[in-house]
């Protein structure tokens, strides 16, 4: 269950004291809206305080809204005053609620509404994309590895946006193991010429022999034909580990 996975991820992070403001608000929102969360019900009370605080801002509080109505600034001023984090939060909450509905739909009698389901799955994908995009700046490598692993569930279809984000982790993360985790997830994706090209481009950027070897193994085991020129360009970089050189040369010979 994808949604369960996200909730578990957020709760784990919360109890490690590592959740961001946005993520805590997401958790709070889930426990307010969802009535039956099964094994996660035991955590509900923990989030009550957050819910109470949030009620001050919810649209359902008509009384409060009425009282505040006369004091509202003009629309243009209001927009200026809105914190950007809140806009991001609102977008994330909407996506997350949609994502949660998938689980319910899949066991409801309306299962046949395939279009709706596809639409919601698309929203889950968007949520994953948001997580991948935002988590890249998290200070703890374990958070970034978890974010990368969330993309695994999209491996049965080739999604270029997700692949691009994974390659971004592979090329830019300062932790080698996060890079290796993204290679690990990329192995699960269907192999296309596009993916192979991205891997070859990435190979030119890697300085760690272990990352170079993992990419070369991936290319070697792929049935897609890759560019010999790119591999030669990689070999011309110099200062490579002898075994890395040997593996790249063997791939060139086999093409």
């Amino acid at each position: 269950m994808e949604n369960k996975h996200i909730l578990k991820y957020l709760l784990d992070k919360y109890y490690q004291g590592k959740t961001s403001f946005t993520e805590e608000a997401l958790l709070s929102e889930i426990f307010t809206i969802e009535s039956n969360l099964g094994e996660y019900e035991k955590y509900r009370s923990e989030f009550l305080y957050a819910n109470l605080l949030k009620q001050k801002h919810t649209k359902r509080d008509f009384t409060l809204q009425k009282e505040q109505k006369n004091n509202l600034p003009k629309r243009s001023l209001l927009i200026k005053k809105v914190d950007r984090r809140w806009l991001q939060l609102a977008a994330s909450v909407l996506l997350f609620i949609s994502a949660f509905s998938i689980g319910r739909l899949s066991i409801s009698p309306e299962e046949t509404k395939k279009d709706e389901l596809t639409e919601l799955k698309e929203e889950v994908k968007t949520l994953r994309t948001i997580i991948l995009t935002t988590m890249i700046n998290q200070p703890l490598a374990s958070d970034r590895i978890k974010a990368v692993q969330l993309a695994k569930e999209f491996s049965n279809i080739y999604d270029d946006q997700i692949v691009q984000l994974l390659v971004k982790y592979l090329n830019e993360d300062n932790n080698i193991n996060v890079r290796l985790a993204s290679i690990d997830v990329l192995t699960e994706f269907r192999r296309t010429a596009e993916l192979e090209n991205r891997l070859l481009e990435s190979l030119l950027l890697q300085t760690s022999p272990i990352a170079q070897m993992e990419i070369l193994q991936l290319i070697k085991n792929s049935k897609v034909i890759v560019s010999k020129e790119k591999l030669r360009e990689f070999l011309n970089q110099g200062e490579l580990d002898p075994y890395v050189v040997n593996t790249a040369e063997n791939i060139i010979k086999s093409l």
Partner: protein
Amino acid sequence: MKKELKYIIAVVFLSLSISYAQTVSYDIELSKPGSMGMLKVDVYNASIRVVGAMGGKAKITIIDKRKGKDKNYGPAEFYYEIIEDNNVVTILNRKRKKIDGLELEISIPQNFSINVSTYFGPKIEVEGIMGEVNVSGYSTDLSLTDLNNSVIANTNHGNVLARIDKFTDTRTYFISSYKGDIEIFLPNNVQATLFMDNGFGNYSSEFELTLDTSKQKNSSTDQVIRKINGGGNELKLINYFGEIIIRKAN
């Protein structure tokens, strides 16, 4: 006379050892004593030892054991920039030059997470840290003990020794070394699923390892998947030329 001579020799040796290993220590006041925090170390040289301690203070000791030409590059304490900001203690290099004989001993509160890396430093030792342990080096041996949280460790040519006291489902465990050995100690009752990728090395285990028949084999990867005590959270171990040794803690 003989007794006096002995004292003189002892004093000479003592003064020689003082000049040989010069030490400078800094006590670091934390912005939020008692709260969780982070240690970030990114230095070009130096062996690094990080110890988790009780209390809300951090202490950094720079030990200078340089010899020969390496002594000509000025006082060791000038090599490092030390910053504390909102319970994040950062140590950075001012000089990016290969110099042997420098050591950093760092004492931080136990509830800190650490992110420590060195390029030429021969060793990183970590003990008593309750937060996440994230270490990396190039030719660096890693010795990590009392691990209770996520462990992310990488070295290119060094060996890794990791003693995990508490292995739980919510943590991330990812250890890699290109040419070194990985020796890992796990609690006897651990439930873990090993993902091992060691192309030209070997692996051995004091635990009984069973096949994971539930996983679909991915043809793009050569990794071996094995379960300990029925399987559990992932423990990812990658090396190409070294040994992977799984040991029981007790």
